[in-house]
């Protein structure tokens, strides 16, 4: 994706990539269904209520959670709010110009939002201070620091890890009218995991690099809850996908999600919040 590469070298790389794929191999030596090394650091931003920096290979993002108070939506007076916002920082790639969030950032925001919301990870009903009047708003802001493919999974992992380590000061009015302030964790119910893959011809590649994405036919991001149920999905890419490929991806992704959930659990346990 870097504009510094010459097109000739890029074409050579592509040819090489396709050749390797026919042998079920990838340019960086991975098998088709392996993730690159994943590093998750939580608690990196002390001023936030929760935070996580996630690297998947050279892709790097950081997410910060802020818990503030606000008014609920009129049609859900008994629920707190969840707001997810992603930004591609202008230094994350040579091809990005400064400006308002474009359609790509909006897609990342909305796909992460749906995955968290539909898995019912956060118990929004437990975030009400006064029904219809005052609730907690959970802002998840994701800054994409360096782009090298599979932004969706990195963004999702960072959001989930940040939420799992979020603490906030909960205010409750006691019987005698006094207000009690208690530091507590965000009420979470599960650890949703998103797995993205691409298809190139008949091959399915989990966790694509940017180079691989540049020749993708289609992309698929699937989110799974703890029980292995699908709770959100989004197709990308500008070519169609067959029913058979789709079903194969679902099976593959479901297994990968289990692997990543184990990793996240380990990180959270070590964090000891």
């Amino acid at each position: 994706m870097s504009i510094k590469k010459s097109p000739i070298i890029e074409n050579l790389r592509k040819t090489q990539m396709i050749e390797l794929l026919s042998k079920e191999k990838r340019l960086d030596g991975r098998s088709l269904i392996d993730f690159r090394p994943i590093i998750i650091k939580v608690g990196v931003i002390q001023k936030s209520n929760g935070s996580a920096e996630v690297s998947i290979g050279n892709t790097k993002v950081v997410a910060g959670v802020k818990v503030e108070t606000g008014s609920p939506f009129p049609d859900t007076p008994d629920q707190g709010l969840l707001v997810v916002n992603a930004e591609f920082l202008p230094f994350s790639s040579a091809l990005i110009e400064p400006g308002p969030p474009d359609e790509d950032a909006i897609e990342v925001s909305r796909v992460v939002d749906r995955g968290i919301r539909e898995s019912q990870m956060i118990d929004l009903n437990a975030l009400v201070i006064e029904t219809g009047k005052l609730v907690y708003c959970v802002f998840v802001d994701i800054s994409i620091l360096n782009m090298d493919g599979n932004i969706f999974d990195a963004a999702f992992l960072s959001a989930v890890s940040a939420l799992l380590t979020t603490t906030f000061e909960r205010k409750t009015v006691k019987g005698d009218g006094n207000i009690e302030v208690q530091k507590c964790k965000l009420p979470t119910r599960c650890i949703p995991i998103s797995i993205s893959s691409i298809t190139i011809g008949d091959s399915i590649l989990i966790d694509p690099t940017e180079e691989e994405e540049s020749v993708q036919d289609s992309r698929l991001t699937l989110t799974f809850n703890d029980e292995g149920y699908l709770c959100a999905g989004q197709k990308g890419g500008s070519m169609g996908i067959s029913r058979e490929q789709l079903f194969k991806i679902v099976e593959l992704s479901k297994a990968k999600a289990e692997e990543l959930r184990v990793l996240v659990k380990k990180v959270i346990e070590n964090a000891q919040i």
Partner: protein
Amino acid sequence: MGKLIDENGIRLDGRRWDEIRPITIEIGVIKNADGSAYIEFGKNKIIAAVYGPREAHPKHLALPDKAIVRCRYHMAPFSTEERKSPQPSRREIEISLVLRRAMESAIFLEEYPRSIIDVFVEVLQSDGGSRCASITAVSAALADSGISMRDLVVGCAVGKIDGQIVLDLSDYEDKEGEGDMPVAYMPNLDKIVLLQFDGIFSEEEFKKAIDLAILGNKKVYEILKKALIEKYFSMVDEK
């Protein structure tokens, strides 16, 4: 038993699990456009119109080897229960993006180097499944414009209500149900070109949903084909 499906398997609007709502398609409704179509799909009322292929402007947008597609999905302020602000929402921007990708799958972009194809969708009244209805209208508008396509693209959602996988959710079923899955499909090439979902689906349910969506899409395809043929024959008749 359930609140959305009764003991006889009948949904609130009288449909069975594998029935789609009534669809009417009219071709060529916008005189100035190069191609256009109007669809009613349940209570959805949607216009799609196409301009192009035309010269890319500004020129630096042009690609030397193929056409670029721009897509704007927009909802009229009066299209929803509550008045919608005319400014495009994040939802509208995302739908514009997934519609564009779906159409890129179908158009022979290489036939139109250095040009641009503008696809505009206006939702005059929205109901469940508006993005699926939109893509069917876009497909009709593209056919009307004479732009070369690999296949027609049609759209039809599936969903999960009262624990059951059913075809083509209405607005109310979408809101009260357990999951929604809009799917767009190229029937002759047998490829899925748009897929989004939220809700809770087991792997089995997911597979069942996809198969049902393909079935629904084939029904929509028959209706679209009929509308295009009627338009074609009526043009021949007029001669």
